[in-house]
């Protein structure tokens, strides 16, 4: 048993944290996160140069990491600065390319940005409800359907698209240039896109792709949950700091027990969140990965919203302003619940597992 990071991962965490604190302060983040292209291309290049993407892929795929804890380290650092860079799409696409045995050079070098398109208007999270259809055209394929809120899709060069082929869920590669892409920004910063497919040419990556999609989603969940832990840590620290500064009734409001206990409860939930991320990261790639990913996403869904709402409430009006960082952390913490399955969706998956056991 060992809860310390390996030296390599600690070094990666230190490097990313230093870079992001210096180069991506929240004021800069807010400048780039809410206007097209909803990220900072030069900072993306710098992140790639620091080895961020290589840390997300295993050696056999050309990377230098790819384990749950590598993913957690990278995304916790990104979460601390609520970085709007499209790293999640790269991670999930890398998992799919690895499952397909496809070359990842363009992805890992940062030359091409990838987004994974599986969500549809009537299938926010459920792979078995996907309606997009693929048809064979000689050696090639064509896709039809609509993919919705594809995170990172506003800047993607390549989409990996989940669609039905002969009744099975398959994964295809679609060049952005061949598709109808409408990009937009999100409430919590960063961007997404609607992807309209109308007989759009595609390359088949994985014919029977449900398991690979599930793995990509599990990895994405570990990433989002670690991102949330980073963002929760910072939000809590800002809040506690504010309790020490802000005076009302002649004393700092941190002297009020009603606020002290709520700040402690936030801390407790953050520690629980950190624990469940460790568990989900440890199980990633194993036979119980989906169960623990669901547990993590459910717990984080609850705790992240608690931290966001309590931080805003305990600050009072100031955290309602665009100017103050907590409003942006709060939005990210609440809205990441809607990515890759929300609190209730993942609770129902844990329930289904219990009923079947």
């Amino acid at each position, binding site marked *: *048993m*060992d*809860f*310390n*990071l*390996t030296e390599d*991962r600690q070094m990666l965490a230190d490097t990313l944290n230093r870079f992001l604190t210096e180069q991506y302060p929240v004021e800069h983040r807010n400048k780039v996160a809410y206007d097209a292209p909803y990220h900072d291309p030069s900072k993306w290049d710098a992140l790639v140069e620091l080895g961020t993407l290589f840390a997300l892929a295993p050696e056999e795929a050309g990377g230098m990491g790819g384990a749950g*804890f590598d993913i957690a380290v990278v995304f916790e650092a990104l979460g601390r600065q609520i970085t709007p860079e499209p790293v999640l799409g790269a991670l999930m696409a890398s998992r799919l390319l690895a499952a397909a045995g496809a070359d990842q050079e363009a992805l890992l070098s940062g030359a091409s940005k990838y987004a994974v398109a599986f969500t549809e208007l009537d299938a926010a999270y459920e792979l078995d409800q996907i309606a997009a259809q693929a048809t064979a055209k000689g050696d090639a394929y064509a896709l039809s359907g609509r993919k919705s809120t594809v995170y990172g899709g506003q800047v993607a060069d390549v989409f990996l698209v989940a669609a039905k082929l002969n009744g099975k869920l398959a994964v295809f590669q679609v060049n952005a240039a061949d598709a109808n892409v409408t990009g937009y920004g999100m409430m919590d910063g960063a961007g997404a896109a609607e992807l309209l497919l109308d007989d759009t040419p595609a390359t088949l990556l994985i014919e029977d792709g449900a398991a690979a999609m599930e793995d990509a989603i599990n990895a994405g969940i570990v990433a989002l949950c670690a991102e949330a832990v980073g963002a929760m840590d910072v939000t809590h620290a800002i809040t*506690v700091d504010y*309790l*020490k500064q802000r005076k009302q009734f002649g004393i700092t409001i*941190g*002297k009020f*027990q009603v606020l*002290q*206990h709520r*700040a*402690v*409860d936030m*801390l*407790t939930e953050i*520690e*629980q*969140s*950190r*624990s*469940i991320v*460790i*568990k989900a*990261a*440890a199980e990633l790639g194993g036979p119980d990965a989906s169960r*623990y990913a669901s*547990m993590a996403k*459910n*717990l984080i869904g609850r705790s992240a919203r608690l931290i966001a709402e309590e931080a805003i409430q305990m600050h009072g009006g100031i955290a309602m302003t665009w100017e103050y960082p907590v409003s942006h952390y709060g939005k990210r913490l609440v809205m990441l619940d809607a990515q890759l399955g929300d609190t209730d969706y993942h*609770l*129902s998956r*844990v*329930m289904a597992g*219990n*009923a079947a056991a």
Partner: protein
Amino acid sequence: MDLSYSAEDIAFRDEVRAYLADNLPKHISDAVREGGEMGKAMIEEWHAILNRKGWLATIWPKEFGGPGWTPVQRHIFEEECCRAYSPRILPFGISMLGPVLQKFGTKEQQDHYLPRILDGTDWWCQGYSEPGAGSDLASLKTRAVREGDEWVINGQKTWTTLGQHADWIFCLCRTDPDAKQQQGISFILVDMKTPGIEVRPIKLIEGGHEVNEVFFTDVRVPYGNLVGEENKGWTIAKYLLTHERTGIAGVGFSMQALEEVKALARKTLRNGKPLIEDPLFAARIAQVEIDLEAMKITNLRMLFKAQSQGAPGPETSILKIKGTVIHQELKDLARRALGPAAAPFPGHVTDGNLMFGPAATAHNAARYFNNRKTSIFGGSNEIQRNILTKTMLEL
């Protein structure tokens, strides 16, 4: 990061598991499984069995007769004990007084009392809380006045767990009423057979007799029963409260309770289907199971910290708060799973009474009510939040 036990730890776990399978008497594990109160005889029987193996005082160092285990080994032992439905080891002598005597006691006190704790000669109870001193323990009023070679003690202790069986009580007494609250308290050992002591039972919410009031009227004990320095008892009290308690999260007991709730929910039919398929109830189970899964890791993280840094730190308050809330939720679910079958008074319903469910389930409401205590005792969860406010948030 590595969540798995080492090969040595796994070998140790297997050894504990095999030992429990061979040595835990079935009538004792059955009694634990049925959830009723443990009688004195059964607790003493189990203590004696563990003591023969040298596994009773798991937190004592080897020199005092403990097994010299690491925090992780102690955790494994506790986990296996819960898994096997063995009774909780009584904390008063083993994990409260024992470490205090080892740190603050004289050689004579150690030589006299420690072996008697191990072999069961002395059953200890705790004299801390008073009617006017609960969370604000330092305001305690029980007075000990030195007269020659004796202490004369007057006052009242309360919430004295299993004091009805006790041979001895360790007490916090006020020995300097003029000093600042925390500075005039001493830690004194008192023989329960001393004239002037009266034990009165307190009947608890579920009808059980677990705690007592202890009255002291001109109780005379030798001056040498003082532990540590006069008026330095608060230091001992704090040491005892913050002393490393690997089991404070109660993870093993909650895992046991979760399995029980699931088993009940599989057996009980609601709307003609097993309750575990009812979405509302299944959601409650799943949610607390997720919280418990996280708690397991939180517990191991703090254990790892205790092992690698020597002390667990104030974060153990997090374990107390969250651990008790999870356990209480599970007890609530067990009660709710049974519906009216949880309602009969234990002992008032027998298998012959066909109006209700089997007698074996009747204790579930009692256990639910009894377990409301866990967020109150040992420093209430609100006091734990005060501790975290000071130590972790520095507010």
